């Protein structure tokens, strides 16, 4: 390893009459220009061979990287050239990651916008063959089931976090921490199978209930709430608790009146992030709740429609002619993404707006 590093005299140090030789460096603008030239050449090459925009960018990035490396190697030497090569590769890695993001969002928005109309939000699929119809029942079903999942998992999650931070000691704490970590890794389909198996034991095989879906989502949601709430509660300064104890306040009142209010913004963020994680889950709802065409808002009575499952079935079993159902599927996907992003954004806003003021 040590052979790799040789001091590179990049600064002029006057030593008597002689001066150390300055290493030649490329100017910043010239490397950028070289890369750009390569990029354009790649684009031109792709245009001549009639390839798509992604391939053009790929050719361009490779040519640009090669151009920078070759010129840098001849002017600045091997080590700097390698450094520049890696810079190009690292930036390209980030660029590659952006390709699917932009491509996906563009696809969903352009295809989903076709049916993003009033009918989609005020009509269910009851009696619909062909055009028209919408995801009214599915949107409401998602809201009902997600809310029910939140009702189950938020108290359990927050209380567990409070236990871990305020009360927990010894092996029980270690065991619960370990299991919460393990729960984080449960695949969503397995959570669905668990809820199905649980309800099948009591209601017989083939059971489909909204509440079973809510239980499945809770299994996925609880560990997220616990982990993030735990982090937030740990941030509450011990001085606040000790000041409260010093005034003779019981521990439980200290938690309810001091610890929780101090961290309420963070707890809100934790819940919102957990909601954002489960609202788009499809697999557990597919096996526990199924799908229906009508509007059923009673989670204790049979199948319900949910937005992700609705989107899935509209795309994979569109019926004939398929075009209408596929358009509905894309709109459902667009609404779903919007929902997740809205929850994500709400989580961040809560964190920012309701954070306790640090000023006096």
């Amino acid at each position: 390893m040590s052979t790799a590093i040789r001091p590179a005299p990049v600064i002029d140090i006057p030593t008597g009459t002689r001066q150390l030789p300055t290493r030649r460096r490329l100017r910043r603008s010239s490397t950028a220009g070289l890369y750009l030239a390569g990029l354009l050449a790649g684009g031109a090459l792709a245009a001549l061979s009639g390839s798509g925009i992604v391939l053009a960018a790929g050719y361009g990035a490779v040519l640009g990287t090669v151009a920078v490396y070759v010129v840098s190697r001849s002017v600045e030497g091997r080590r700097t050239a390698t450094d520049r090569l890696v810079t190009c590769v690292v930036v390209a890695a980030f660029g590659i990651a952006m390709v699917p993001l932009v491509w996906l969002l563009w696809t969903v928005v352009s295809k989903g916008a076709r049916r993003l109309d009033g009918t989609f939000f005020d009509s269910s699929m009851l009696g619909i063959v062909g055009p028209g119809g919408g995801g009214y029942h599915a949107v409401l079903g998602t809201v009902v089931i997600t809310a029910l999942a939140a009702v189950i998992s938020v108290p359990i999650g927050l209380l567990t976090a409070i236990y871990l931070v305020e009360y927990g000691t010894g092996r029980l704490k270690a065991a619960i921490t370990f299991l919460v970590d393990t729960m984080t890794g449960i695949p969503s389909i397995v959570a669905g199978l668990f809820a199905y198996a649980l309800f099948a034991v009591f209601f017989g095989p083939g059971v489909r209930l909204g509440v079973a879906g809510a239980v499945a989502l809770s299994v996925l949601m609880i560990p997220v709430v616990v982990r993030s709430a735990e982090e937030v509660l740990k941030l509450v300064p011990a001085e606040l608790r000790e000041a409260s104890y010093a005034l003779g306040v019981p521990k439980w009142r200290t938690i309810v009146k001091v610890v929780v209010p101090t961290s309420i913004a963070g707890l809100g963020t934790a819940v919102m992030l957990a909601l954002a994680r489960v609202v788009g889950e499809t697999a557990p709802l597919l096996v526990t709740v199924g799908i229906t065409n009508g509007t059923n808002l009673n989670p204790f009575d049979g199948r319900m429609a949910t937005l992700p499952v609705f989107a899935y079935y509209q795309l994979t079993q569109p019926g004939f002619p398929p075009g209408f159902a596929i358009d509905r599927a894309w709109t459902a996907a667009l609404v779903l993404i919007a929902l997740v992003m809205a929850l994500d954004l709400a989580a961040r806003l809560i964190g920012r707006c309701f954070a306790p003021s640090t000023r006096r």
Partner: protein
Amino acid sequence: MARVPRRPGDRVFAGTATGAGILILVVLAGVAVFLVTEAWPAFTAPPAALPGGTGLAGYVAPLIFGTLVAAVIALVVATPLAVGIALFITHYAPRRLAAALGSVVDLLAAIPSVVYGFWGIAALAPSLVPAYRWAEKHLGVIPLFAGPASTTGRTMLTAGLVLAVMILPIISAITREVFSQVPALHREAALALGATRWETIRLTVLPYGRSGIIGGAMLGLGRALGETLAIAIVLSTSGGITLDLISSSNPSTIAANIALQFPESSGLAVNALIASGLVLFVLTLGVNALARRVVGRRADLSGAT
């Protein structure tokens, strides 16, 4: 901390909080117990009564194979990219932009699995068809590209690429976390010796972050193994173990097979599906526990070594 007298309210509150913690133990035990209960008939049933007629092992083996192949493709593609992204955000991007760029990558994690499936089947798969044709023609000697190339692009390789995009944010988030914790002294020491930026990274950041990269990759693997809907939509399946990544006859994965078969199944087929779910549960549990151990070990690693 001061000793506080125990009051009734205290006891109730402490009891509720502890109860919630214990409930989690119960839930996880319940997951295992109920899955085993519902899977049990499939273990004891005669082989001919199960779907496929070759017994449970014969039913699950191709699914396990498919699950592993898709996950390995995802891992091979996503890990180097994620390391690159993490390096970009922690060491290359301008300080002020770094946080924003990080949350742009995290957006990838916010997109629901079913939407990845939509994108995979409608956008990614068709645009990969020419590449598959080319691969069949020029790389056909390699068993991986033996062909015949799929005309829809719904191949194992496409599914693996979609998975790669899905696990990218997980791996890069963990790698980023570890890279940003590299002690400044290590970096400054390398820089003071005249190392270029890449040499600094190679000599300080990568060795320090190695366990983070491995752990992050394994957490991504855990996620990839359990990913359901994206694969159920993208992959065109017809059973059978094959190494061919670009044809349209592929083994399904455990999770995708459950999603596809479960709604229309009844009787023993449901038990067989739940048994395969149990296998998946054990598989992901093992991978995740191992990953946590690798990531956790870094906490003991002092900056001085």
